[in-house]
């Protein structure tokens, strides 16, 4: 089974990531645990509600958190795709899902992320990371401790340093 990083440890990836589709109404959704594109979810919410325990939804970098909104709270998993690692829109998406729309499930970063982004990604609320094939996951775990202190408020630390400074 493919591996990923979840909650700062290497774990099995039991979810299938469904490809983007132009036919959201008719495309076949596999029965196994699957992460569907946003448009599939939007088109077939009612049908999919019955199997919600094995259903995740992924947002592309140009699809924002408000398109899922508080409905995210029903889902066990939301993924955000990074088409290139320099495309930083997903950082805002993650914070909004966590901080504004109350999503508490697994928030997964997928696509072209690199190890050196893990610290910022987890600060923004991601807790699972499907790194590109070939990435050294064991070594990547070290990046979660790149910094031992931070200035800003974010998902991992809701108070800015100036409210915590001794």
């Amino acid at each position: 089974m493919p591996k990923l990083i979840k909650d700062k440890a290497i774990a099995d990836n039991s979810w299938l990531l469904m490809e983007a589709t132009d036919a959201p109404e008719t495309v076949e959704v596999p029965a196994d645990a699957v992460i569907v594109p946003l448009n599939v979810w939007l088109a077939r919410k009612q049908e999919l509600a019955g199997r919600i325990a094995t259903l995740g939804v992924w947002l592309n970098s140009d699809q924002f958190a408000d398109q899922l909104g508080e409905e995210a709270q029903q889902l066990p998993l939301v993924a955000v795709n990074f088409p290139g690692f320099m495309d930083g829109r997903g950082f805002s998406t993650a914070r909004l899902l966590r901080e504004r729309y109350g999503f508490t499930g697994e928030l997964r970063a997928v696509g072209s992320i690199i190890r050196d982004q893990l610290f910022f990604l987890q600060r923004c609320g991601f807790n699972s990371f499907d790194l590109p094939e070939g990435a050294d996951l064991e070594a990547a775990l070290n990046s979660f401790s790149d910094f031992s202190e931070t200035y800003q408020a974010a998902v991992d630390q809701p108070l800015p340093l100036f409210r915590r400074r001794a």
Partner: protein
Amino acid sequence: MYQYDEYDHRIIRDRVAQFRGQTERYLAGELKDEEFLPLRLQNGLYIQRLAPMLRINVPYGMLSSTQLRKLAHIARTYDKGYCHITTRQNVQFNWPELEEVPEILAELAEVEMHGIQSSGSCIRNVTSDQFAGIASDEVVDPRPYCEIIRQWSTFHPEFAFLPRKFKIAVTGSDNDRAAVQVHDIGLQVVRSDAGDTGFRVFVGGGLGRTPVIGSLIRDFLPEAHLLSYLEAILRVYNQLGRRDNKYKARIKILVKALGAEAFGAKVEAEFAHLQDGPITLTGEEIGRAQRFFPTLPYQSLDNAADALLQQQAAEAPAFGKWLTRNVGEHRQPGYATVTLSLKPTGVAPGDLTDGQLEAIADLADQYSFGEVRTTHEQNIVLGEVEKSKLFDVWQAARAQGFATPNIGTLNDMICCPGGDFCSLANAKSIPIAESIQRQFDDLDYLYDLGDLDLNISGCMNACGHHHVGHIGILGVDKKGEEFYQIQLGGNAGTDVSLGSVLGPAFGAEEIPSVIQKLVDIYVDKRVEGERFIDTYRRVGVDPFKEKVYAKAD
């Protein structure tokens, strides 16, 4: 000035260790070129025409003598014995070895300096007025707010991969010396009629390929909401800024596309969510930041030294010239500001040797409470000099070569490193600066011309701010040959304006005589008390154009 506590030190040390690891992985082939690129840029490391270039932040221009001495040591140990003051108040080294950069950053961390986010598509070093805290026309000292912004923007997890670079400038004076209206965000600290402190917020200004003057989207933002409002602007930009074309990725393009009003509405909608959240500034935090910028332990003086200065100026006319051009008013009686000119003819504008850095450190310790300021015009300011010591300072500065009495004149040009160093440049800019300085080598004539901003950029990225020079010079490439386009009518102050292209470009050798002709027209047309820009605004471009492009008989 601001001093790190254990938290700040820890964050910077962690960064040095992180970059050391990234450099090792890169050199071992574990990190691809395209992956290392943004990581090194976010530490200020470029790969330039001849060698790497390392840009070190000088937060809002403040430097201590300890930091100056460390920069001197780095110039001597890791570089060729000099550094360069940039047009954003930062310091650049042109010749470091990639392998040694982690070590340089470790040394800088010891004196509370770093290259974090001095490049790359992220929030850059915040800039300010070089006379912050000492200007007689200042309303509020902007530096505490600059420091609060520095900390908020350093490793902001959400905004490390923006569509493009992002520059914030803050002024605390009605007389804007920080060019806030040509920044991605420009802030003017103001006081309301009720005595509350807040900000006028400009967005979407900038130079570069598409120069734009910023739009005012908030007339009064209470100080407590500074960070939530900035976060709202950045979030809107991070989500909606273009990422398909790097030439259209700056926030100014987004603001233009949406219209300033619609953009402002989006910011306000986002701000409504963030307002009064945990990043709302507390009175304690603002007070903490302000305590780092106290009124210095000045002597209780009146302006009795003015008579002495007059006498000294009469006896030594060269000192008198320097007083006129390089010395400015201070809010504290008996004190003055001194601008050390880094523009002597024949030296690349803004360049300093290791020995000069140390000499400035000594001057700072002896005469200016151990602090100096870098300026976006690429000079250095001793901010706190007793008037009775000005003659001593002048003599010491003269011995080191930075008492050239040309501040604010045509010869005090802003100039990017250009084609001699920069891999983006279309043309050289340093030799153009020198050829103009040689053309205008008569100081009395230069003084007669008065305040004249001449800005030179070696390409349309506009690091030399040519759009806001009274006279702007832009290096262009025409079929492999270097040419120079002239713009007139720009201005960086409160009455900001962008220059207009005069006409067809010139070869390098023609530039001194072209500038001479422009100046001749000014002298011919000016009325009493008018600066070049005033005359230009009154008479328009035509007389200048006619003179410069007149057919030889």
